[in-house]
């Protein structure tokens, strides 16, 4: 035995322990670390699920997917209205949740591929449930409402209602010879139908919801394709945006009535 030998590793380590220079770290510190990592994981997981839910909600509640019904002609409008912020946010949070999970060391003996699949699967399931609850709709209400918390959510929803250069959606309030005026969540916009190549299936009527692709020229929108929408409930975020901007829909009196 090499007792009291300063070169002996055991003696060196034990002398530091006995002198109190090296102490056991408190078990509560490890508990707090584990709790902190656990909470961070749960938070990022739930945020990832929420972002996925919001992305789904955005896709089904705005005009975004409608532009694909125009085929290649609607591609630019689709890309312009795509919820990039939400989808990128979702992907970043997904990776962050995976990273925190790996960092925690839990289930290290399970293949990473299965864990990643399970993580993505759970996030998609919970996110889908979120998108079908009123939570996302309520968040939209908060985002555009007078409450101070709205500013936090607005960047995620605003692109759904922004004025676009390649597409437009809204309610017809006036029909002219080769144009229509439609209410959008931002303002009333004149849609020029002079260069229309793909028209609606139904006869246009005031109060009808339409979606169009084409190009914005100054204050008016020149449409090359226009589809009527059977039910305004199919684009609820646009409908609510218009309602917030213009109130309840009342057909505009004919121009002859206004001139009197």
């Amino acid at each position, binding site marked *: 035995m090499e007792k009291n030998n300063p070169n002996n590793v055991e003696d060196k380590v034990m002398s530091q322990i006995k002198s109190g220079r090296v102490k056991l*770290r408190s078990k509560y510190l490890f508990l707090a670390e584990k709790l902190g990592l656990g909470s961070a994981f749960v938070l990022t997981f739930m945020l990832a699920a929420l972002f996925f839910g919001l992305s789904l909600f955005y896709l089904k509640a705005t005009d975004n997917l409608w532009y694909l019904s125009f085929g290649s002609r609607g591609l630019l409008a689709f890309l312009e209205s795509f919820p990039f912020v939400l989808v990128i946010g979702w992907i970043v949070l997904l990776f962050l949740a995976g990273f925190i999970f790996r960092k925690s060391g839990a289930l*290290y*003996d399970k293949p990473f591929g299965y864990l990643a699949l399970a993580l993505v699967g759970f996030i998609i399931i919970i996110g889908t449930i979120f998108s079908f609850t009123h939570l996302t709709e309520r968040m939209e209400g908060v985002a555009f409402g007078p409450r101070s918390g709205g500013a936090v959510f607005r960047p995620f929803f605003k692109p759904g209602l922004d004025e676009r250069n390649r597409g437009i959606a809204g309610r017809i309030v006036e029909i002219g010879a080769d144009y229509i005026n439609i209410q959008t969540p931002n303002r009333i916009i004149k849609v020029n139908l002079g260069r229309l190549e793909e028209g609606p299936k139904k006869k246009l009527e005031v109060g009808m919801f339409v979606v169009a692709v084409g190009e914005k020229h100054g204050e008016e929108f020149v449409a090359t394709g226009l589809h009527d929408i059977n039910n305004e409930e199919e684009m609820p975020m646009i409908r609510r945006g218009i309602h917030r901007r213009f109130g309840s829909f009342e057909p505009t009196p004919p121009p002859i009535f206004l001139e009197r």
Partner: protein
Amino acid sequence: MHQKAILTDEEIVSLVRTKNQELYGEIIRRYETKLTHYLRKFIHNSDELKDVLQDVFIKAFRNLYDFDIDKKFSAWIYRIAHNEALNYLKKYHRHSISLEGEEWNLLEDKKDLNKETDTQLLKDQIEKGIALIKEKYRDPLILSIFEEKSYEEIGEILHLPTGTVGIRIMRGKKLLQQFLNQEFYGKK
């Protein structure tokens, strides 16, 4: 002394945590040789090796409450040693691997390495070969061949699934074989 000898590592850790910190000396005695043997592959200088070994035992002591008493202590302390060795290699930008005399005997016993090369291998070529293999293949290979750890233990030390350990060891051996073939016969 006799009582200490019949206690398992996990039981000693439990006593160190709650009652008697001096029992940690027994843990050091049990692992000093094993860890020195393991660390020597990464650290050639004996003074530096002693410093790293001391750091391993101090780190292990400080973090004893982080150890899950239901798991194997040996895998846990090897993991600390492994991480310290990697930190050392990163800090000093050293990448060579050193094998000792007894490890050559172990290597001879591994018939699955390659019968043809077993007889012709030169020490420096093997060392060079292992050092050149990617870390993710090298570490399980070292633990399997030279530390004679089971796949489960290697999985616990490196935090990898057992299946992945097996695949990496197999790939590591293949890479080593390719390197040696290239060195000796100039073929890929």
